[in-house]
């Protein structure tokens, strides 16, 4: 599939491929558009979104020799690791860290050499060799390389020269959202936010939620579909280093409110379906449940769950996702929600019909029963 190179005219009106694993094999795929979403879900279903706002995570800078580099933030360092970041105490359901702010001064980042977003990530040169202790200049702020990951010399821990108010001001002044070489233009900060974005935990946009407008969300609610949210720190999708890419996604932090746990529990008890908006929501819910023996618990955590084709979700019944096809890694994740033959047919349909992929592209909904006769009749 071709990537979308710019925004759709309206964020909430893109093509939607509906894939119903419960439908007869010959009738499991339908094409519609995202405004039809309220017709595809049923009263009693629950839509769970990732409310992470997208950070200006790409920082252009200079190394100690003056050479151009770029740092793309990929994760906040674990609380406690940064000295000022761990005041909340990990694990409590409503800890300071969960409810309050991020006060740490350390982030993990992937470093790149010279160049800008017009070059594909995989074509960007690596950064010059930089020792632990090297100081990087990002204009309004600076950082010291505090550590290096065994996964790749490009993956380093940065300790910024300030924390709190001053750090966040400087990050928002110096940084820009991670950019994509296949786009016709650069992406400003507003363009990488969902309509419900709150805490800026995401290093790239949780883009499955991009087509959701309030028009659609309120129509879903009028129909009796509930919403719930969690926050999941979506990391980078690509690093330009094959070994590091193979290790993605890195462990990512999440925070699941108690109200979301209640909504999931009630939905499942009443036979409703839990629909995740994006793989970040799947990782948070399924990752959290795994750490507690299959029981979903509220609170902050970190998950290293990898969704593979043989992964069987325990909490989530369906997924709203961007449109993907082989060989994209995201496509393989969808196999956790539909049988391979159905997915292959869906990918072939999307390809032939000219669906657009990537951050600003079209959408897919995989949901058992989405094409049951009642919903079916309502589709245009």
């Amino acid at each position, binding site marked *: 599939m071709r990537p979308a190179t710019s925004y759709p005219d309206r964020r909430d009106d893109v093509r939607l491929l509906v894939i119903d694993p419960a439908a007869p094999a010959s009738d499991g795929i339908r094409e519609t558009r995202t405004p039809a979403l309220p017709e595809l879900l049923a009263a009693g279903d629950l839509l769970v*979104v990732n*409310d992470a*706002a997208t*950070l*200006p995570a790409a920082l252009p800078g200079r190394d100690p020799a003056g050479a151009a580099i770029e740092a793309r933030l990929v994760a906040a360092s674990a609380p406690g690791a940064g000295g000022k970041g761990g005041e909340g105490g990990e694990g409590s359901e409503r800890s300071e860290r969960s*409810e*309050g*702010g*991020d006060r740490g001064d350390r982030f993990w980042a992937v470093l790149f050499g010279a160049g800008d977003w017009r070059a594909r990530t995989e074509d960007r040169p690596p950064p010059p060799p930089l020792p632990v202790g090297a100081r990087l200049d990002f204009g309004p702020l600076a950082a010291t390389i505090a550590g290096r990951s065994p996964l790749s010399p490009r993956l380093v821990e940065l300790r910024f020269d300030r924390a*709190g*108010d001053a750090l*966040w*001001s400087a990050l*928002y002044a110096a940084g820009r959202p991670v950019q994509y070489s296949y786009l016709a233009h650069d992406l*400003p*900060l*507003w363009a990488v*936010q*969902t*309509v*419900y*974005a*709150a*805490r*800026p935990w995401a290093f790239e946009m949780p883009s499955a939620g991009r087509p959701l407008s*309030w028009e659609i*969300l309120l129509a879903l609610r009028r129909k009796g579909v509930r*919403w719930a*949210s969690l926050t999941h720190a979506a990391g980078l999708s690509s690093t330009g280093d094959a070994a590091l890419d193979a290790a993605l996604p890195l462990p990512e932090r999440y925070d699941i409110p108690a109200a979301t746990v209640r909504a999931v529990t009630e939905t499942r008890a009443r036979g409703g379906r839990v629909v995740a908006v994006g793989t970040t929501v799947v990782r948070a819910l399924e990752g959290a449940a795994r750490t507690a023996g299959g029981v979903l618990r509220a609170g902050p955590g970190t998950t290293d769950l990898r969704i593979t084709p043989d992964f069987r979700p325990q909490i989530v019944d369906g997924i709203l996702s961007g449109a993907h096809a082989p060989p994209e890694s995201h496509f393989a994740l969808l196999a956790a929600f539909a049988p391979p033959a159905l997915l292959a047919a869906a990918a072939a349909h999307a390809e032939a019909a000219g669906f657009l992929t990537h951050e600003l592209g079209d959408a897919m909904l995989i949901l058992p029963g989405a094409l049951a006769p009642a919903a079916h009749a309502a589709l245009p």
Partner: protein
Amino acid sequence: MNDLDGINALVTGGSQGLGRALGLALGRAGARVVLVARHAEPLAAVVAEIRAAGGEAHAIAADVADQEAAFKIAGQAAALVGPIDLLVNNASTLGPVPLRLLLDTDCEDLERALAVNLVGPFRLTKAIAGPMVLRGRGTIVNITSDAATEAYARWGAYGASKAALEQLARIWAAELGDTGVRVLTVDPGEMDTRMHADAIPDADRAQLGDPARVAARILALVRAPVAGTPPGARIAVSSAPLLTVEGS
């Protein structure tokens, strides 16, 4: 009174006048306060004052009229304190003083008044009301003026911008009616502030309201149950003892 414990509040125009008074009152009540203003130094002084009194406060130096600013402010604020529960759109500009007749008002000055007093609050509300609706709770307060409803000569740019802000607030309230997010418009009355002195230098300061008392009354509205104030209500808050609620 720590009854706003744990509430995350964002107040624009926080370095002076009513914004400063709101910041201090919110800090005393236990809220986590984020103040926005154009100039860093006076803002830092207010933040220091709140912290010295035992409150939590943070500063974001930004111009709400800057079209890039809304998501930067929203992002920084949520990073510092978490999702915002209370947004007060308080920053505003009179335009050049002494105030001019409309026939003598430069078009650019009208545009600037609209950018600060109308479009800026719209952008910031858009960025912050969405997560409030998702969570099913939140309060948005727009600070207005009687210049929005009375045709005072020389108050054209300011008055028109505030009238538009009030209508926007009524429509926000109508659209968000059943979401748990409350939108209010508050007319603080004439207060003893630098802005008032700029507009009416020869006013009798003894007749002007005390921003601290007005701030206390606004917080009383914030504390009141959602049912206690009609959606989109325009509430005149003077420092006199009684509140006047004009129809919704």
